[in-house]
């Protein structure tokens, strides 16, 4: 076939939604490609071995697996905070670490709220914009108020973190992540320390915000419920050495609610993921 025709065909193909083989359709190339990434520490511990992962724009990917399987390590590598020993990562088609690319906006939500205790809620949320130093005061004020209203904390701008409950502190942390309008949001067990009710409420809020803002999210959790409820795709990892053993697409429409939580479909996904996690804890490989 003529090269020009082949190129034209490839371009046309790239513009069409395509199936990733796991029941999900994506448009264009993945924004992040993790290619056979391994991470070994100086003491010889293999935290991650030949991990492969692709993340498309608008994805909500959850990493799940037993403790020590390298979920948080992979997340730190995705953020550019952690270096890889082998393999490569492409962020938006380039191998330049995302932290060195001012054109790409990354946000990280840690397991603890990671707020500055000496700063009020407003100052905590405004931090990324102030560090950037390119926006005027009025714009910062508007953006901070907007995200605080989005997470339901518009009335608490002048509160100190210690005056807020754990759930409210986590909302501030999410607001700070959203204020930069990130291309990619990485969340490391953000709701792990919260009670069930607060957690469910924040799950709903996160899903609404992700849907409204078309966010790309990579989420780490120990909760199967959270993984199935929030995700478009769940990546199951096994420990010793940490590796990806399965990917499960959660093919249910967004936004989801109580009806989805009570559906047979939800139960099927839970059963499937539970079996995958059992296999992961035994260190077994799962056929795709």
């Amino acid at each position: 076939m003529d090269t020009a025709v082949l190129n034209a065909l490839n371009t046309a193909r790239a513009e069409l939604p395509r199936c990733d083989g796991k029941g999900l359709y994506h448009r264009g190339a993945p924004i992040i490609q993790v290619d056979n990434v391994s991470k070994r520490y100086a003491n010889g511990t293999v935290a991650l071995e030949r991990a492969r992962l692709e993340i498309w724009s608008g994805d909500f990917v959850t990493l799940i697996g037993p403790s020590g399987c390298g979920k948080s390590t992979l997340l730190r590598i995705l953020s550019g905070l952690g270096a890889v020993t082998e393999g490569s990562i492409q962020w938006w088609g380039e191998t330049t670490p995302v932290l060195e690319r001012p054109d790409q906006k990354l946000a990280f939500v840690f397991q603890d709220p990671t707020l500055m205790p000496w700063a009020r809620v407003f100052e905590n949320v405004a931090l990324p914009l102030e560090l950037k130093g390119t926006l005027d005061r009025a714009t910062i004020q508007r953006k901070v108020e907007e995200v605080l209203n989005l997470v339901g904390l518009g009335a608490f701008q002048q509160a100190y973190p210690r005056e807020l409950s754990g759930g409210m502190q986590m909302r501030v942390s999410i607001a700070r992540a959203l204020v930069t309008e990130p291309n990619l949001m990485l969340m490391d067990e953000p709701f792990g320390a919260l009670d069930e009710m607060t957690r469910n409420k924040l799950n709903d809020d996160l899903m609404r915000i992700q849907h409204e803002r078309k966010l790309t999210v990579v989420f780490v959790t120990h909760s199967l419920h959270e993984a199935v409820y929030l995700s478009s795709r769940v990546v199951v990892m096994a420990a010793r050495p940490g590796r990806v053993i399965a990917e499960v697409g959660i093919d249910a429409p967004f936004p989801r609610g109580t009806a989805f939580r009570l559906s047979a479909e939800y139960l099927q996904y839970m059963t499937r993921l539970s079996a995958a996690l059992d296999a992961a804890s035994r260190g077994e490989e799962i056929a795709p």
Partner: protein
Amino acid sequence: MKSPDISRNAARQVNWGSSKLPVLAIGVGLLAVWQLVVVALSLPVYVLPGPLDVLKALYADSDLLFTGLLFTLKVTVLAFAVAVLLGVAISFLLSQSRLLEQSVMPYMVILQVTPIVAIAPLIIIWVSNTFVALVTIASITALFPIVSNMTLGLRSVAPNLQSLFRIYRASNWQTLTRLKLKAALPYFFAGARISSGLALIGAVVAEFVAGTGGTQSGLAYIILESGVQLKVPRMFASLFLISLTGIVLFALMVFISNRVLGAWHESTVKTEH
């Protein structure tokens, strides 16, 4: 902004008022016992003067004592300021590298554990200006708590907060001023409380060693001079002023610390149960 939705662990300032009364009662009681013992045993004033004799000396020698107080205070405050500036600067340097900290810290410890009375005569010889020599001695005495605490503070920033600053591409200067300095403040004030008292001790020791006379007479020299002249009530009056200065300095540091950290740090707020 307060609201009923805010959790019940809302902070309130530590109230020192409720603890003042027992402190005052104990003080007055001890003074009364002291006066009674002196009167009951008919102790001569050159052996142990009563509190009333000390009070009389405070009034009678007020000019001399006030001049001495001003001089000692000047040395103390200047020495404390030097210790803070130098201590913070050294901490910044040490916090830049573990190797540097491990290399320098033993010498700081040596400087701290060597009795200042043993170094003071050398400094008096080396520094020709007596006032500068006194400030130098007091500064050395007050330096270590600032260096030790501030270095620890600069190293104790939560790792996730540091990662956050990296993710938001903060410059080194932004990380220092907006994160490390603020996170180290509670450690700094803990060191400053100790250091302020040590600056006073250093000033008094330096005066004893230097034995300055004339207009440069501090409270320590007044104690020395009064001892020779057997003016024991004046010695006690000087001692009282030194103690009072120490208490005021400590209270001042607590006040500043509460003002700066009051709204957010656990050490200065009380949790309601």
